[in-house]
């Protein structure tokens, strides 16, 4: 026993170093499951505060671009107004089922909430965005986030007033999307090469794909409503060893000057998740 103590005393610094390494590595590799382990929720609140202060200054330099994108978004919304679609004759009058729109509000599946972006990175391999809206404002993990231009990412962690969003530019981010032309589904990933491009995989070669094709969110993704813009095909890489295309996609979202995003709440997410999980359990 005495020797053990002597050993510890002799190599105390080295052992202490090893302990710290083990702690750090366990934070790192168990990150996805153990947010509490690293006090991340508390830390998000603190770093979010710093990010907010920085953003107060940075915001003024982006005002022009933010204004432009909001104006464009408004135009798009105006185009969708029912008053724009007026047919000349009586027999083609547009009739809206008022029951569905007004009194049965419960059928709305997706709710949009606006949020201010206070911090973001694009230079790393694991990029996150911090938004100023948290658990107290109804943000929960696994909510989709879009901007006025296209999809941005998914909420992964929330504190009281802030939330961190795993952006499309994250090595572990995956989302199911579809091609607009023929509704074929594939998965979007980021290969970490350039923040200007992401990759779309799992599109079979039987499908005809050309440069410039539009990529939209798929109705099978439970995080996003269908048909939200993701990006356009920039290059079709013909991989001879595979039956699937690797498509280089230019995301429509500009990650360098995000100012406002919309957090999407899927009202039926828990229900769908529960059903899918229980089905999986049943047949295991």
């Amino acid at each position: 026993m005495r020797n053990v103590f002597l050993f510890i005393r002799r190599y105390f610094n080295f052992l202490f170093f090893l302990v710290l390494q083990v702690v750090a590595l366990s934070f790192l590799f168990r990150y996805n499951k153990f947010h509490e382990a690293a006090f991340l929720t508390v830390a998000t609140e603190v770093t979010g505060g710093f990010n907010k202060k920085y953003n107060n200054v940075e915001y003024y330099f982006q005002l022009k671009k933010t204004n432009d994108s909001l104006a464009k978004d408004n135009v798009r919304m105006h185009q969708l107004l029912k008053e724009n679609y007026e047919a000349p004759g009586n027999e083609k009058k547009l009739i809206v089922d008022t029951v569905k729109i007004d009194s049965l509000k419960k059928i709305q599946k997706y709710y949009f909430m606006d949020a201010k972006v206070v911090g973001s990175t694009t230079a790393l391999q694991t990029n996150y965005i911090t938004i100023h809206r948290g658990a107290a404002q109804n943000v929960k993990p696994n909510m989709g986030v879009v901007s006025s231009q296209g999809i941005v990412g998914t909420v992964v962690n929330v504190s009281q007033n802030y939330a961190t969003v795993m952006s499309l530019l994250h090595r572990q981010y995956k989302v199911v999307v579809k091609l607009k032309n023929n509704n074929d589904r594939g998965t979007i990933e980021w290969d970490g090469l350039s923040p200007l491009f992401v990759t779309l995989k799992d599109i079979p070669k039987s499908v005809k794909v050309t440069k410039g094709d539009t990529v939209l969110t798929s109705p099978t993704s439970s995080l996003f409503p269908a048909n939200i813009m993701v990006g356009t095909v920039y290059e079709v890489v013909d991989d001879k060893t595979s039956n699937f295309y690797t498509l280089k996609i230019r995301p429509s979202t500009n990650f360098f000057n995000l100012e406002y995003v919309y957090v999407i709440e899927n009202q039926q997410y828990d229900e769908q998740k529960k059903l899918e999980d229980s089905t999986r359990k049943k047949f295991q």
Partner: protein
Amino acid sequence: MSVLLKNIIRFALFILIQVFVLFKVPPLHRFITPYLYFLFILWLPFNLPRFSLTTIGFLFGLSLDYFTNTPGLHAAACTLIAYVRPFIINLLISQEGSDKNYTSPSITSMGWAPYATYVVVLTFLHHSYLVFLEWMSFGSFWYFLGKVIATTAVSLLLILVTELLFYRNEKFRTNTV
């Protein structure tokens, strides 16, 4: 200004500059990430016990991690260089014992060549370990090699600029009282 206060201010400044200036630089290439923050550990005083040096390294790295949402990544790399630092200093310091006569490592206290070696070795060690941990989760060997070399080169350039801009005047202390 006392050494403690100076280092507390440096701690905050290095983290903030890394997060709000260097990480905001639009990426030039996937291999290049400008890192400067670990210079804080290189500038810590000579007379710190190894136990506190390792602890400071860990806490410093962890506070950067909270900004980048990667708990443990920078902490592991910083702990490593903080632990290895005393060994390198013992190897490089000359016989006169400048670690007794000066407060912290710098060009004046160690001399050009030993200080440059000290910076290069620790920078390389820091980046290798950091990129190695990244490589464990994703990436290929060429990614590892390219990123270590490119990032080390950029960091050394940044450190050179910092040393020239913020010249630290180290006072010679004698124990002949």
